[in-house]
């Protein structure tokens, strides 16, 4: 296996400032290494872009950090607590309560209205209908979607649907938001507006944001960028 490389911008885990940390993360698909031993730290309120060519391992890193995939080796800490050894049930609960997700094409539930889509994570967490729908409406208003609460995803533009997805990711006040190519299906301007909305709303709620993208321009607009190549963090990093 290749020698492990480190994110030079990474804060000291022992220093306690990282909300999410990965140490020596390895993920294999057969004989192929998607992650070859990555260390990474995400601070509270951080906004990190993970960039790299197709097949470099950036989506695998996102999925391993979020607990969607299990790493073959390495450790993951959430606010200092090790989470990579949790069983599927606990990891699901963690994803539901501590993390938020924004996917490329929103992946909203087609049958639900915008406000129901946004309210869904809270409902799944046990909130009442009234409470969850009210929170959903509030988040939609904050993201400029007032008046479109009862629209279905099919009745929204791509940018609007992504903002609904952002609202859904934020509504239960997660610690970390994972976004996988959130502007991949949008034109440049709408993509920029959507990212502004995501970063603004995340900053407002104090959540860290990890964005996987192959869009250099978008990555450069982020405060911090981690470059991945062949399952390793590249030694030269964007500022």
């Amino acid at each position, binding site marked *: 296996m290749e020698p492990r490389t480190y994110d030079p911008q990474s804060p000291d885990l022992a220093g306690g400032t990282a909300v999410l940390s990965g140490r020596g993360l390895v993920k294999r698909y057969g004989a192929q290494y998607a992650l070859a031993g990555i260390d990474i730290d995400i601070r509270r309120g951080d906004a990190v872009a993970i960039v790299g060519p197709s097949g470099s391992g950036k989506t695998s890193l996102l*999925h391993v950090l*979020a607990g*969607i995939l299990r790493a073959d080796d390495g450790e993951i800490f959430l606010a200092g607590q090790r989470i990579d050894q949790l069983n*599927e*049930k606990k990891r*699901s*609960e*963690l*994803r*539901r*309560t501590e*993390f*938020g*997700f924004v*996917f490329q094409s929103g*992946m*909203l*539930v*087609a*049958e*639900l209205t915008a406000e*129901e889509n946004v309210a*869904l*994570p809270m*409902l*799944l967490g046990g909130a*009442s*209908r009234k409470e969850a729908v009210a929170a959903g409406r509030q988040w939609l208003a904050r993201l400029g979607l007032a008046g479109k609460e009862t629209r*279905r995803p*099919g*009745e929204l533009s791509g940018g609007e649907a992504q903002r609904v997805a952002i609202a859904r990711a934020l509504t239960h006040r997660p610690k970390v938001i994972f976004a*996988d190519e959130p502007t991949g299906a949008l034109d440049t301007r709408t993509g920029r507006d959507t990212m502004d909305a995501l970063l603004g709303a995340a900053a407002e709620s104090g959540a860290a944001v990890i964005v996987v993208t192959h869009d250099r321009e978008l990555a450069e607009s982020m405060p911090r960028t981690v470059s991945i190549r062949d399952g390793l963090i590249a030694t030269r990093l964007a500022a």
Partner: protein
Amino acid sequence: MNALQLALRVLRRDRRTRTSAILTGMGVAIATGLVLLLISLPFATKARAERSQWQEITYSAREQSAKLLISTSEDFVDGKKITRIDVAPVAGAAGIALPAGVPKFPAPGETWVSPELGKLVHSKPESQLADRFTPNLAGALGSDALKFPEQLVALVGHTPEDMPSDALPAPAFTHGDARVDGLLQLLAGVGVVVLVVPSLVLVASAARLTAARRERRLAAIRLAGATPGQVTNMVAAETALSAIVGALAGLVLSPALHRLATFVPWDGGTWQASDFSLPIPLTITLVVAMPVLVLLAAVLGLRRVFATPLGAAAGHTKKPLHWWRLLALPVAGAVFLFAIVQANTGGDSSGFLLLFGLALLVGSAALVGPWVTSAVGGLFVKVWRKPAGLLAGRRLRDDPKGAYRASAGVVLAVFAGSMALTLMPSLESMAGGGRAFQDSVLYVESDPANAAKIAQQTDAALTKYGEPARSTVVRQVGLRVAEGSGHSNYSALVMDCATAVRLTRFNVGTCDAKPGIYSSYSLDLGKASVVSYYKTGDEPGTPLAPGVPLHLLSKADADVVGSLLIDPSALPAGLVTSPEERVTVAVPSTDGNRETVRTALGGAAGGAQVYSRELRLGNQQSELGDLRRVTVIGLLAAAVLAGCSAAVATAGSVMDRRRTFGALIAAGTPVKVLARALRVEAALPALVATIGAGVVGILVGIGLFSLVDDQGITMSPWILAPVVLGVGVALLAASVCTPALNRVRAEPLAEE
């Protein structure tokens, strides 16, 4: 690359398309196998009837020049029916054509028996069976002479002089075309609908597994410039592969299915495997028709791709369902009601109208079901409290046709089941009737000239067999009571009170009263007279002697109606016995001596029919048992098929929304919450639709029963069974969503 090559490539590369093709093939195979079986049922009954036709006498035969005398009767042993044919040649046996399976015309004193009857004859004491026939058991009848392999048949040879008195002259044994069993033909027709529709729903559900993906692929091909004809060819090739293989598999499966069917008794026995053979042209037509129907359905499903390829690729908004769909049910109900009224009043085309009404009712479910599903969804959208309720409600509201499709098979099965279970207890309640003798009393009908001789010979045989039972000769006379300008006629058994206690079900009490007339009707005996036998009811009667007392009977048995008892001492002295007077020779029997008594009585009566109410009830139960058996088999098969299609539909609905569910699972939604939502989604329309189908099925059952009997319907708690079974099957089928979701959980964000 032509359409077939493209279809083969898709099948090789895409696992889900392969699964869908296999399920489609299975659905078509099951449907083809079932159609081939059900359509063969009338042919099977015809084959049976033709084999056993020689055991019957046709009226037309009586008018021809006679070559033989023939008498047929039913006998029984251990509750099983023996068909007995007594024959004698009029002028030598040489010119008499023998039925297939009959090796030889029996000489006087010879009896040919079926193999099963032969076994019984040899396994029982002679007094219980063998003595009923002529002494020489000549050999066994072949299977071609039997209605079913285990049929009990005796062909008894006589001289013309010792033939039973009811023997008729005939030019030959009956042969030629036989009629099919009407009831089984009707049941086969119902079976085609009840079993083939769920099979086709299974095919439709299987096709849905790849519908979304195929629609995208076809839309892409259309956008790339393919003509509708080219796209049609591609779809036809894809579907034809599985449909043709399925139909051929159904054809191959068919003999096994027929073999299984031979074990299901109907009308007293099982079947020969060859009974179920269908004419080859019909078989080819059916085997070709199944894939053609499936192909047509697949090609018709392309309308949207042709109309709006971009819309199909990008998804579409479904139009809300119109309220007028609801009208389908009352309209169909009105037609059915009209058909029932017509049938009850004996209208000419009532049979066709009735079937048309039934077809409309079944068809109306396809219009009403989705609307009701949508309405239930709407209700849930309004009142939901948990995410499962919200997800299920919205899904039902959004795609009511798709949601209903999953339960369509179950709905049909519940409809048919409720209808059958409404009819069944009511038909069972109609069983009974028969004469007023106790169930275990055996009797033969005779006339005044022969009755005493039969009684004497019976008693002699019983003495020989060491049985203490003795026969009683019971006269049956007519009692006429003048009423206004006319009169009423009543049939009366002539016996004393003690004999009535011993032989009948009349509740005559302790027989302390003065001998007279026992009746459940209040009669004015002052205006009563007695006739020995009446042909028209207007024959002058002999007045009763004054002072004959009337004892009113309390109704101990609802079946004892229309009969009275006259004590012999109360008969008028001048009553002349008519040679046509009906006389019965009756012997009480027990479980231990029944067959011996039957042998003695039957032997003495020279092959005349020995009756008993026990056998009448047994026959009725046997017919109802046939009906119950095929109903249960049909419903279970329909439930299994409907369950399979509902399970495939549920799996398809998970696959259709794989990316959405994957995203929800990735975001931490527990599989059990999604599974609960999917179960609610499947169970809600199934619950509403099965209750609806159950209610309609019961109403239709009541309507159909009114054609048979105007008595009230008999309800049983079992009537709820189809609804419970339907909801259970739907829930069980919906439970496949958990493994399907677990597969999604393994790779939640993987591409399809």
